[in-house]
């Protein structure tokens, strides 16, 4: 795995091929372990595979994560989620979610769980746009895995989601949605497709 932790800013990983093989689901291609402010990060134009675990995993502990670009990467043949943001506190709050996050122009193919999954959410901060656009997701999920959605977006606020192409989502039981937005505290589940092709 590629391990990134501590206070980090102004860093870039680009044009790398990151390959993880084996049967361990807890091995990640890239792990970002965030216990201090973490900003101005770029993950650009990489090829990322992981036969059993997650591609990019971001673990946030309520500290600031902002201005991160995940662009033009090729995620393929991944055993769990391709991109997963989690807040390891009991729940994401209005002041702990990342902001200025852009996930754009990526390709996701043959992903066993969601292509993008966040329980950490995203929040509004002026001049720090949250954007999920121009991604292509093909062959997401598996007949053996329940509740797979291509983009599982919890606690997403003030994000533009547009021009994503999603095709062929498989799951053993629903949801099986292309894009799902969930706000758990309100017990409202919304399935919304915004300018996307499913």
């Amino acid at each position: 795995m590629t391990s990134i932790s501590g206070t980090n800013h102004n860093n870039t990983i680009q044009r790398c091929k990151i390959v993880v093989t084996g049967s361990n689901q807890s091995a990640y291609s890239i792990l970002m372990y965030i216990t201090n402010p973490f900003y101005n990060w770029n993950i650009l134009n990489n090829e990322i595979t992981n036969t059993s675990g997650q591609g990019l995993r971001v673990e946030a502990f309520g500290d600031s994560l902002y201005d991160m670009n995940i662009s033009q990467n090729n995620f393929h043949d991944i055993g769990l989620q391709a991109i997963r943001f989690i807040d390891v506190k009991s729940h994401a709050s209005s002041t702990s979610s990342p902001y200025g996050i852009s996930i754009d122009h990526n390709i996701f193919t043959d992903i066993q769980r969601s292509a993008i999954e966040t329980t950490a959410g995203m929040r509004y901060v002026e001049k720090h746009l949250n954007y999920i656009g121009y991604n292509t997701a093909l062959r997401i999920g598996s007949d053996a895995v329940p509740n797979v959605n291509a983009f599982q977006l919890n606690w997403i606020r003030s994000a533009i989601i547009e021009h994503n192409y999603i095709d062929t989502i498989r799951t053993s039981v629903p949801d099986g949605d292309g894009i799902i937005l969930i706000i758990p505290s309100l017990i409202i589940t919304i399935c919304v497709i915004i300018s996307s092709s499913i």
Partner: protein
Amino acid sequence: MGYGGRHRHKLRMAPDNAWKTISKVQCIVLSPGRFHPVQAGEIWREPLVISNSGIREPDHIWSIRYGALPKIVGSGSDYALSVDSRNNVVVQELNLIMTDTRRLE
């Protein structure tokens, strides 16, 4: 990231100056705008640990653009690449491989 004239000059100089072992990265003090070459097509069976931050402007760990990407194989360790509390670093054009995916945390 731009690659200006002084950077292109260093690209030409790279083959003779390429590191023979990746462990050198762990002790070198990164300096502003300096490129640190990694030889293309080679395999290191040791993790790459970025142990210093660049200063002010991004520093570079990079590979020569000709031939196969250099491979860093992290088997038997926690990671192939670690960037722990470091800033102003660009890691590019490396083939990072983990073949022994045991849980180590």
